[in-house]
Protein backbone atom coordinates (compact mmCIF):
# COMPACT_ATOMS: atom_id res chain seq x y z
CA UNK A 1 0.00 0.00 0.00
CA UNK A 2 1.49 3.32 -1.00
CA UNK A 3 2.18 5.68 1.87
CA UNK A 4 1.05 9.15 0.98
CA UNK A 5 3.22 11.87 2.44
CA UNK A 6 2.47 15.49 1.66
CA UNK A 7 5.00 16.90 4.08
CA UNK A 8 7.77 17.47 1.52
CA UNK A 9 5.27 19.30 -0.68
CA UNK A 10 4.15 21.57 2.13
CA UNK A 11 7.72 22.18 3.18
CA UNK A 12 8.59 23.35 -0.31
CA UNK A 13 5.38 25.21 -1.01
CA UNK A 14 7.46 28.32 -1.73
CA UNK A 15 8.82 26.62 -4.83
CA UNK A 16 5.33 26.00 -6.12
CA UNK A 17 4.21 29.49 -5.17
CA UNK A 18 7.03 30.97 -7.23
CA UNK A 19 5.96 28.77 -10.11
CA UNK A 20 2.37 29.91 -9.85
CA UNK A 21 3.46 33.54 -9.77
CA UNK A 22 5.52 33.00 -12.90
CA UNK A 23 2.64 31.30 -14.63
CA UNK A 24 0.41 34.25 -13.89
CA UNK A 25 3.11 36.70 -14.93
CA UNK A 26 3.59 34.97 -18.25
CA UNK A 27 -0.15 34.78 -18.87
CA UNK A 28 -0.58 38.44 -18.08
CA UNK A 29 2.29 39.44 -20.38
CA UNK A 30 0.96 37.38 -23.24
CA UNK A 31 -2.48 38.92 -22.77
CA UNK A 32 -1.08 42.44 -22.64
CA UNK A 33 0.59 42.05 -25.99
CA UNK A 34 -1.69 39.48 -27.53
CA UNK A 35 -4.92 41.43 -27.31
CA UNK A 36 -3.81 44.60 -29.10
CA UNK A 37 -1.89 42.53 -31.61
CA UNK A 38 -5.01 40.46 -32.16
CA UNK A 39 -7.07 43.58 -32.75
CA UNK A 40 -4.50 44.77 -35.28
CA UNK A 41 -4.57 41.46 -37.10
CA UNK A 42 -8.36 41.43 -37.13
CA UNK A 43 -8.57 44.90 -38.61
CA UNK A 44 -5.97 43.97 -41.22
CA UNK A 45 -7.93 40.88 -42.15
CA UNK A 46 -11.03 43.00 -42.63
CA UNK A 47 -9.16 45.51 -44.78
CA UNK A 48 -10.15 45.67 -48.39
CA UNK A 49 -6.58 45.88 -49.62
CA UNK A 50 -5.37 42.34 -50.29
CA UNK A 51 -1.83 43.46 -49.60
CA UNK A 52 -2.90 43.98 -46.00
CA UNK A 53 -5.47 41.27 -45.51
CA UNK A 54 -3.63 38.32 -47.01
CA UNK A 55 -0.48 38.42 -44.85
CA UNK A 56 -2.63 38.98 -41.78
CA UNK A 57 -4.79 36.02 -42.68
CA UNK A 58 -1.71 33.92 -43.20
CA UNK A 59 -0.28 34.79 -39.82
CA UNK A 60 -3.58 34.05 -38.11
CA UNK A 61 -4.13 30.76 -39.91
CA UNK A 62 -0.55 29.66 -39.38
CA UNK A 63 -0.54 30.27 -35.65
CA UNK A 64 -3.95 28.73 -35.18
CA UNK A 65 -3.13 25.62 -37.17
CA UNK A 66 0.34 24.66 -36.00
CA UNK A 67 0.75 23.06 -32.58
CA UNK A 68 1.70 25.53 -29.84
CA UNK A 69 4.60 23.40 -28.65
CA UNK A 70 6.16 23.46 -32.11
CA UNK A 71 5.84 27.25 -32.11
CA UNK A 72 7.42 27.43 -28.68
CA UNK A 73 10.39 25.30 -29.73
CA UNK A 74 10.89 27.41 -32.82
CA UNK A 75 10.84 30.71 -30.94
CA UNK A 76 13.00 29.28 -28.18
CA UNK A 77 15.65 27.43 -30.15
CA UNK A 78 15.52 28.79 -33.68
CA UNK A 79 14.72 32.49 -33.39
CA UNK A 80 17.63 33.50 -31.14
CA UNK A 81 20.09 32.07 -33.65
CA UNK A 82 18.25 33.55 -36.58
CA UNK A 83 18.23 37.11 -35.35
CA UNK A 84 21.39 36.79 -33.34
CA UNK A 85 19.73 37.83 -30.11
CA UNK A 86 20.09 35.96 -26.87
CA UNK A 87 16.81 35.32 -25.17
CA UNK A 88 15.84 34.18 -21.75
CA UNK A 89 13.24 31.46 -21.58
CA UNK A 90 10.81 34.08 -20.32
CA UNK A 91 11.27 36.33 -23.34
CA UNK A 92 11.01 33.47 -25.81
CA UNK A 93 7.88 32.24 -24.08
CA UNK A 94 6.38 35.73 -23.92
CA UNK A 95 6.92 36.27 -27.63
CA UNK A 96 5.49 32.87 -28.53
CA UNK A 97 2.35 33.20 -26.48
CA UNK A 98 1.76 36.81 -27.40
CA UNK A 99 1.73 35.95 -31.07
CA UNK A 100 -0.08 32.66 -30.59
CA UNK A 101 -2.84 34.17 -28.50
CA UNK A 102 -3.09 37.15 -30.82
CA UNK A 103 -4.05 34.78 -33.63
CA UNK A 104 -6.95 33.46 -31.58
CA UNK A 105 -7.94 36.89 -30.34
CA UNK A 106 -7.90 38.09 -33.91
CA UNK A 107 -10.61 35.58 -34.71
CA UNK A 108 -12.68 36.64 -31.72
CA UNK A 109 -12.37 40.31 -32.72
CA UNK A 110 -13.27 39.55 -36.29
CA UNK A 111 -16.32 37.51 -35.34
CA UNK A 112 -17.43 40.23 -32.98
CA UNK A 113 -17.00 43.04 -35.48
CA UNK A 114 -18.71 41.10 -38.22
CA UNK A 115 -21.62 40.27 -35.96
CA UNK A 116 -22.59 43.90 -35.64
CA UNK A 117 -25.44 44.76 -37.96
CA UNK A 118 -24.46 46.38 -41.21
CA UNK A 119 -27.02 49.01 -40.48
CA UNK A 120 -24.83 50.34 -37.71
CA UNK A 121 -21.90 51.20 -39.94
CA UNK A 122 -24.28 52.49 -42.61
CA UNK A 123 -25.88 54.83 -40.14
CA UNK A 124 -22.48 56.00 -38.96
CA UNK A 125 -21.27 56.68 -42.50
CA UNK A 126 -24.54 58.42 -43.30
CA UNK A 127 -23.72 60.88 -40.54
CA UNK A 128 -20.47 61.61 -42.34
CA UNK A 129 -18.10 59.51 -40.26
CA UNK A 130 -15.06 57.97 -41.89
CA UNK A 131 -14.65 54.24 -41.79
CA UNK A 132 -12.15 54.56 -38.99
CA UNK A 133 -14.44 56.79 -36.94
CA UNK A 134 -17.34 54.43 -37.46
CA UNK A 135 -15.19 51.55 -36.29
CA UNK A 136 -13.90 53.40 -33.28
CA UNK A 137 -17.09 55.10 -32.13
CA UNK A 138 -19.86 52.74 -33.17
CA UNK A 139 -18.72 49.27 -34.15
CA UNK A 140 -15.97 48.37 -31.73
CA UNK A 141 -17.74 49.53 -28.56
CA UNK A 142 -20.69 47.31 -29.39
CA UNK A 143 -18.54 44.45 -30.56
CA UNK A 144 -16.34 44.41 -27.49
CA UNK A 145 -19.28 43.89 -25.18
CA UNK A 146 -20.30 40.79 -27.11
CA UNK A 147 -16.83 39.37 -27.16
CA UNK A 148 -16.16 39.56 -23.45
CA UNK A 149 -17.04 35.94 -22.63
CA UNK A 150 -15.05 34.66 -25.58
CA UNK A 151 -12.10 36.77 -24.47
CA UNK A 152 -12.27 35.40 -21.00
CA UNK A 153 -12.46 31.85 -22.27
CA UNK A 154 -9.48 32.41 -24.54
CA UNK A 155 -7.53 33.85 -21.62
CA UNK A 156 -8.20 30.75 -19.59
CA UNK A 157 -7.06 28.63 -22.52
CA UNK A 158 -3.92 30.73 -22.62
CA UNK A 159 -3.21 30.03 -18.99
CA UNK A 160 -3.45 26.32 -19.68
CA UNK A 161 -1.21 26.62 -22.71
CA UNK A 162 1.54 28.36 -20.75
CA UNK A 163 2.31 25.03 -19.05
CA UNK A 164 4.19 24.19 -22.23
CA UNK A 165 7.07 26.37 -21.09
CA UNK A 166 7.93 23.74 -18.54
CA UNK A 167 9.51 21.84 -21.44
CA UNK A 168 11.93 24.70 -22.15
CA UNK A 169 12.97 25.28 -18.58
CA UNK A 170 11.02 28.37 -17.73
CA UNK A 171 10.21 28.23 -14.04
CA UNK A 172 6.45 28.16 -14.30
CA UNK A 173 4.31 26.10 -11.93
CA UNK A 174 4.63 22.87 -13.89
CA UNK A 175 8.38 23.22 -14.26
CA UNK A 176 8.74 23.86 -10.56
CA UNK A 177 6.57 20.86 -9.85
CA UNK A 178 8.72 18.65 -12.00
CA UNK A 179 11.89 19.86 -10.27
CA UNK A 180 10.33 19.39 -6.88
CA UNK A 181 9.13 15.91 -7.73
CA UNK A 182 12.62 14.89 -8.72
CA UNK A 183 14.13 16.49 -5.64
CA UNK A 184 11.75 14.95 -3.10
CA UNK A 185 11.12 11.62 -4.86
CA UNK A 186 7.43 12.24 -4.23
CA UNK A 187 6.01 12.69 -7.73
CA UNK A 188 2.56 11.46 -6.76
CA UNK A 189 2.00 14.04 -4.04
CA UNK A 190 3.72 16.86 -5.91
CA UNK A 191 1.89 16.38 -9.20
CA UNK A 192 -1.43 15.78 -7.51
CA UNK A 193 -1.11 19.00 -5.55
CA UNK A 194 0.00 20.83 -8.68
CA UNK A 195 -2.97 19.52 -10.65
CA UNK A 196 -5.25 20.67 -7.86
CA UNK A 197 -3.69 24.13 -7.79
CA UNK A 198 -4.24 24.50 -11.53
CA UNK A 199 -7.77 23.19 -11.16
CA UNK A 200 -8.69 25.62 -8.41
CA UNK A 201 -7.30 28.65 -10.24
CA UNK A 202 -8.75 27.76 -13.63
CA UNK A 203 -12.09 26.56 -12.29
CA UNK A 204 -12.51 29.76 -10.30
CA UNK A 205 -11.71 31.75 -13.43
CA UNK A 206 -14.26 29.79 -15.46
CA UNK A 207 -16.93 30.41 -12.82
CA UNK A 208 -16.29 34.14 -13.21
CA UNK A 209 -16.75 33.71 -16.96
CA UNK A 210 -20.06 31.92 -16.43
CA UNK A 211 -21.31 34.66 -14.18
CA UNK A 212 -20.33 37.34 -16.68
CA UNK A 213 -21.99 35.39 -19.47
CA UNK A 214 -25.17 35.02 -17.51
CA UNK A 215 -25.28 38.67 -16.62
CA UNK A 216 -24.78 39.64 -20.24
CA UNK A 217 -27.49 37.19 -21.29
CA UNK A 218 -29.91 38.66 -18.78
CA UNK A 219 -29.29 42.16 -20.05
CA UNK A 220 -30.19 40.90 -23.49
CA UNK A 221 -26.76 40.98 -25.02
CA UNK A 222 -25.96 38.42 -27.62
CA UNK A 223 -22.49 37.01 -27.43
CA UNK A 224 -20.15 35.55 -29.99
CA UNK A 225 -17.89 32.62 -29.64
Amino acid at each position, binding site marked *: MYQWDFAPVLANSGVLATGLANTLKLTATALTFGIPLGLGLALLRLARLRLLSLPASFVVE*FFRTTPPL*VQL*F*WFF*FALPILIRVEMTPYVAAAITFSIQSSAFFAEVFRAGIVSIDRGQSEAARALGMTGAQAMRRVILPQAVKRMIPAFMERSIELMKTTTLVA*TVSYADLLFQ*ANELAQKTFR*PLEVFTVTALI*YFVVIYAASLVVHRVERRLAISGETTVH
Partner: protein
Amino acid sequence: MNHRWNFDAVWAHPEALLAGAAGTLRIFAICLVLGLSLGLLVGLGRYSRRPWIYLPASTFVEFFRNTPVLVQILWFYFALPMLLPFEISPLTAAALGISLNSAAFSGEIFRGGIQSLERGQWEGAQALGMTQGQAMRRIILPQAIKRMLPALTNRAIEIFKMSTLASAVAYVELLQQGKLIASLNFNPIEAYTVIALLFFAFLYPLVQATYVLERRLRQGD
Protein backbone atom coordinates in the same frame (compact mmCIF):
# COMPACT_ATOMS: atom_id res chain seq x y z
CA MET B 1 19.36 37.80 -41.34
CA ASN B 2 22.67 36.25 -42.28
CA HIS B 3 21.82 32.68 -41.53
CA ARG B 4 22.62 30.29 -44.33
CA TRP B 5 19.67 27.99 -44.53
CA ASN B 6 20.69 24.41 -45.08
CA PHE B 7 18.01 21.78 -45.03
CA ASP B 8 20.19 18.87 -46.13
CA ALA B 9 20.65 17.41 -42.70
CA VAL B 10 16.92 17.38 -42.15
CA TRP B 11 16.14 15.38 -45.27
CA ALA B 12 19.27 13.21 -45.09
CA HIS B 13 17.51 10.56 -43.03
CA PRO B 14 13.86 10.58 -43.98
CA GLU B 15 13.19 7.51 -41.88
CA ALA B 16 13.51 9.64 -38.77
CA LEU B 17 10.72 11.92 -39.89
CA LEU B 18 8.63 9.01 -41.11
CA ALA B 19 8.96 7.31 -37.75
CA GLY B 20 7.84 10.56 -36.16
CA ALA B 21 4.88 10.90 -38.49
CA ALA B 22 3.86 7.31 -37.81
CA GLY B 23 4.03 7.93 -34.09
CA THR B 24 1.95 11.07 -34.42
CA LEU B 25 -0.73 9.30 -36.42
CA ARG B 26 -0.75 6.38 -34.02
CA ILE B 27 -1.34 8.41 -30.90
CA PHE B 28 -3.81 10.61 -32.74
CA ALA B 29 -5.88 7.61 -33.79
CA ILE B 30 -5.85 6.14 -30.29
CA CYS B 31 -6.82 9.38 -28.59
CA LEU B 32 -9.46 10.25 -31.18
CA VAL B 33 -11.26 6.94 -30.77
CA LEU B 34 -10.94 6.78 -27.00
CA GLY B 35 -11.64 10.46 -26.50
CA LEU B 36 -14.79 10.62 -28.60
CA SER B 37 -16.32 7.35 -27.46
CA LEU B 38 -15.67 8.07 -23.80
CA GLY B 39 -16.91 11.59 -24.49
CA LEU B 40 -20.22 10.25 -25.80
CA LEU B 41 -20.69 8.20 -22.63
CA VAL B 42 -19.79 11.16 -20.46
CA GLY B 43 -22.08 13.48 -22.42
CA LEU B 44 -25.01 11.11 -22.08
CA GLY B 45 -24.07 10.56 -18.46
CA ARG B 46 -24.35 14.28 -17.72
CA TYR B 47 -27.84 14.12 -19.16
CA SER B 48 -28.94 11.34 -16.85
CA ARG B 49 -31.32 12.04 -14.00
CA ARG B 50 -29.66 9.59 -11.67
CA PRO B 51 -27.18 11.32 -9.36
CA TRP B 52 -24.83 8.39 -9.24
CA ILE B 53 -24.36 8.78 -12.98
CA TYR B 54 -24.33 12.50 -13.60
CA LEU B 55 -22.29 13.46 -10.55
CA PRO B 56 -19.19 11.44 -11.51
CA ALA B 57 -19.67 12.49 -15.12
CA SER B 58 -19.82 16.18 -14.17
CA THR B 59 -16.84 15.93 -11.85
CA PHE B 60 -14.86 14.22 -14.57
CA VAL B 61 -15.68 16.90 -17.09
CA GLU B 62 -14.97 19.82 -14.78
CA PHE B 63 -11.67 18.36 -13.64
CA PHE B 64 -10.26 17.36 -17.00
CA ARG B 65 -11.39 20.53 -18.72
CA ASN B 66 -9.94 22.83 -16.10
CA THR B 67 -6.50 21.32 -15.76
CA PRO B 68 -3.85 21.67 -18.47
CA VAL B 69 -3.35 18.54 -20.51
CA LEU B 70 0.42 18.58 -20.03
CA VAL B 71 -0.11 18.39 -16.28
CA GLN B 72 -2.33 15.38 -16.83
CA ILE B 73 0.23 13.68 -19.05
CA LEU B 74 3.03 14.21 -16.55
CA TRP B 75 0.80 12.99 -13.74
CA PHE B 76 0.10 9.78 -15.57
CA TYR B 77 3.79 9.35 -16.41
CA PHE B 78 5.38 10.26 -13.09
CA ALA B 79 2.71 10.06 -10.44
CA LEU B 80 0.54 7.11 -11.37
CA PRO B 81 3.36 4.53 -11.43
CA MET B 82 3.84 5.18 -7.71
CA LEU B 83 0.45 3.59 -7.16
CA LEU B 84 0.97 0.71 -9.52
CA PRO B 85 3.37 -2.21 -9.47
CA PHE B 86 4.41 -1.52 -13.06
CA GLU B 87 5.79 1.30 -15.14
CA ILE B 88 3.72 3.32 -17.54
CA SER B 89 5.10 3.80 -21.03
CA PRO B 90 5.31 7.25 -22.60
CA LEU B 91 2.62 6.27 -25.09
CA THR B 92 0.27 5.10 -22.36
CA ALA B 93 0.77 8.19 -20.24
CA ALA B 94 0.37 10.60 -23.14
CA ALA B 95 -2.58 8.69 -24.56
CA LEU B 96 -4.31 8.61 -21.19
CA GLY B 97 -3.81 12.33 -20.64
CA ILE B 98 -4.92 13.40 -24.10
CA SER B 99 -7.83 10.94 -24.31
CA LEU B 100 -9.31 11.83 -20.95
CA ASN B 101 -8.88 15.52 -21.66
CA SER B 102 -10.57 15.11 -25.03
CA ALA B 103 -13.33 13.00 -23.50
CA ALA B 104 -14.15 15.87 -21.15
CA PHE B 105 -14.31 18.40 -23.98
CA SER B 106 -16.21 16.19 -26.38
CA GLY B 107 -18.54 15.21 -23.55
CA GLU B 108 -19.54 18.85 -23.34
CA ILE B 109 -20.00 18.98 -27.09
CA PHE B 110 -22.30 15.95 -26.97
CA ARG B 111 -24.25 17.37 -24.07
CA GLY B 112 -24.63 20.72 -25.81
CA GLY B 113 -25.73 19.06 -29.01
CA ILE B 114 -28.40 17.02 -27.27
CA GLN B 115 -29.54 19.98 -25.25
CA SER B 116 -29.82 22.21 -28.30
CA LEU B 117 -32.76 20.25 -29.58
CA GLU B 118 -35.98 21.82 -28.54
CA ARG B 119 -38.10 20.04 -26.00
CA GLY B 120 -40.71 19.56 -28.67
CA GLN B 121 -38.68 16.80 -30.26
CA TRP B 122 -38.52 14.88 -26.99
CA GLU B 123 -42.23 15.45 -26.45
CA GLY B 124 -43.14 14.34 -29.95
CA ALA B 125 -41.23 11.11 -29.40
CA GLN B 126 -42.59 10.64 -25.90
CA ALA B 127 -46.18 11.18 -27.03
CA LEU B 128 -45.82 8.30 -29.46
CA GLY B 129 -44.96 6.03 -26.56
CA MET B 130 -41.22 5.86 -27.10
CA THR B 131 -38.94 5.09 -24.18
CA GLN B 132 -36.13 7.51 -23.39
CA GLY B 133 -33.70 5.17 -25.07
CA GLN B 134 -35.74 4.91 -28.25
CA ALA B 135 -36.25 8.66 -28.37
CA MET B 136 -32.52 9.27 -27.90
CA ARG B 137 -31.54 6.76 -30.53
CA ARG B 138 -34.12 7.50 -33.25
CA ILE B 139 -34.89 11.18 -32.84
CA ILE B 140 -32.45 13.12 -30.68
CA LEU B 141 -28.99 11.79 -31.52
CA PRO B 142 -29.43 11.74 -35.32
CA GLN B 143 -30.34 15.41 -35.24
CA ALA B 144 -27.74 16.29 -32.63
CA ILE B 145 -24.85 14.68 -34.52
CA LYS B 146 -25.40 17.01 -37.44
CA ARG B 147 -25.16 20.02 -35.16
CA MET B 148 -22.13 18.75 -33.31
CA LEU B 149 -20.09 17.86 -36.34
CA PRO B 150 -18.21 21.19 -36.62
CA ALA B 151 -17.30 21.21 -32.94
CA LEU B 152 -16.28 17.56 -33.06
CA THR B 153 -14.05 18.03 -36.08
CA ASN B 154 -12.45 21.00 -34.32
CA ARG B 155 -11.84 18.76 -31.35
CA ALA B 156 -10.21 16.18 -33.61
CA ILE B 157 -7.83 18.80 -34.94
CA GLU B 158 -7.02 19.87 -31.40
CA ILE B 159 -6.24 16.25 -30.53
CA PHE B 160 -3.89 16.09 -33.48
CA LYS B 161 -2.07 19.19 -32.25
CA MET B 162 -1.91 17.80 -28.73
CA SER B 163 0.04 14.82 -29.99
CA THR B 164 3.13 17.02 -29.86
CA LEU B 165 2.86 17.12 -26.07
CA ALA B 166 3.79 13.46 -25.99
CA SER B 167 7.33 14.61 -26.79
CA ALA B 168 7.51 15.88 -23.22
CA VAL B 169 7.71 12.27 -22.11
CA ALA B 170 9.95 11.31 -25.04
CA TYR B 171 7.33 9.50 -27.08
CA VAL B 172 8.53 9.19 -30.67
CA GLU B 173 6.29 11.53 -32.67
CA LEU B 174 7.08 14.23 -35.18
CA LEU B 175 8.22 16.98 -32.79
CA GLN B 176 10.32 14.54 -30.82
CA GLN B 177 12.08 13.60 -34.02
CA GLY B 178 12.55 17.29 -34.75
CA LYS B 179 14.27 17.67 -31.39
CA LEU B 180 16.44 14.69 -32.23
CA ILE B 181 17.48 16.03 -35.60
CA ALA B 182 18.14 19.47 -34.12
CA SER B 183 20.33 18.13 -31.35
CA LEU B 184 22.30 15.80 -33.60
CA ASN B 185 22.94 18.33 -36.36
CA PHE B 186 22.91 21.60 -34.44
CA ASN B 187 20.39 23.00 -36.88
CA PRO B 188 17.35 23.93 -34.82
CA ILE B 189 16.25 26.58 -37.30
CA GLU B 190 15.88 24.21 -40.22
CA ALA B 191 14.67 21.34 -38.11
CA TYR B 192 11.88 23.18 -36.32
CA THR B 193 10.91 25.14 -39.42
CA VAL B 194 10.43 21.90 -41.28
CA ILE B 195 8.39 20.41 -38.44
CA ALA B 196 6.19 23.50 -38.28
CA LEU B 197 5.66 23.47 -42.04
CA LEU B 198 4.87 19.76 -42.04
CA PHE B 199 2.17 20.26 -39.42
CA PHE B 200 0.81 23.26 -41.27
CA ALA B 201 0.77 21.48 -44.62
CA PHE B 202 -1.14 18.57 -43.12
CA LEU B 203 -3.61 20.44 -40.93
CA TYR B 204 -4.43 23.52 -43.00
CA PRO B 205 -6.37 21.61 -45.68
CA LEU B 206 -8.25 19.78 -42.95
CA VAL B 207 -9.15 23.02 -41.21
CA GLN B 208 -10.38 24.48 -44.50
CA ALA B 209 -12.42 21.34 -45.07
CA THR B 210 -14.13 21.82 -41.72
CA TYR B 211 -15.07 25.40 -42.69
CA VAL B 212 -16.64 24.05 -45.87
CA LEU B 213 -18.43 21.37 -43.86
CA GLU B 214 -19.71 23.96 -41.41
CA ARG B 215 -21.03 26.15 -44.17
CA ARG B 216 -22.68 23.25 -45.92
CA LEU B 217 -24.38 22.12 -42.70
CA ARG B 218 -25.63 25.60 -41.99
CA GLN B 219 -27.15 25.83 -45.45
CA GLY B 220 -29.06 22.63 -44.90
CA ASP B 221 -30.97 24.10 -41.98
